[in-house]
């Protein structure tokens, strides 16, 4: 029963990018994010994707799928699918607003990511999900020298504040 408002800064405006010579951090508004769980081929087929990206393969196009688990993908900007159990045998949930997406690019992008986790392009992983500064995040290569990060939206304020001082 205590007023702790003074202990917490008001949320930062996450729409503003941070730009330096060798590093850019900017929020990305994705049109759609859909979680699909089930046999991997069923999920890929419903998401209309040939494969799902892990680490370190780049995602690159406007619509892509990310591999979270052996039986789960996140479809980005994929087809609209109804929430619930799909008759083809997959569980579907819309997460468009559940993950905040941040793009980190520039020569300092990979070193910045290496402040929050051990991330090595020479060590591949089937899943692009890992703990970053202690939070579960999707981290994947987007294009040359640029990476994308998805974090649970309620944590995005703390993540933004964590990245900014070291940039």
């Amino acid at each position: 029963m205590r007023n702790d408002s003074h202990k917490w800064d008001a949320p930062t405006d996450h729409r503003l990018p941070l730009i330096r010579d060798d590093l850019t951090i900017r929020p990305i508004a994705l049109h759609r994010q859909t979680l699909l769980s089930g046999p991997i081929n069923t999920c890929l087929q419903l998401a209309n994707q040939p494969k799902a990206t892990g680490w370190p393969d780049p995602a690159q196009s406007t619509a892509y799928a990310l591999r979270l688990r052996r039986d789960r993908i996140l479809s980005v900007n994929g087809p609209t699918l109804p929430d619930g159990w799909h008759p083809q045998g997959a569980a579907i949930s819309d997460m468009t607003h559940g993950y905040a997406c941040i793009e980190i690019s520039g020569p300092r992008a990979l070193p910045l990511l290496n402040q929050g986790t051990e991330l090595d392009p020479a060590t591949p992983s089937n899943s692009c999900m890992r703990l970053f500064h202690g939070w579960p995040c999707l981290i994947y290569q987007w294009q040359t020298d640029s990476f994308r990060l998805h974090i649970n939206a309620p944590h995005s304020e703390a993540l933004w504040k964590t990245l900014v001082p070291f940039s």
Partner: protein
Amino acid sequence: MQQFPCPFCGLRDEREFHFAAEAGKIRPDTTQPVSDADWAAYLHNRKNPKGETREVWIHTPCAEVFILKRDTLSMAVLGCEPLRKDIP
């Protein structure tokens, strides 16, 4: 900072993992009578071996629940196995 292997994700930082249980404990069928002693053994008794051990761990980012083989003396990680039987 140790590295543990997840059967799906490969080698990852130990902080991504959480111990779940000793491997090989089967839950008694509680639709049949289960003695106090058997239920207590299931709840509380652990083998706690010195040396090689098989444990159930969870890799929290991908939520894979799997078997991790470790050596409790040398800290060596001996390998991992998925729980699912259908994975080669």
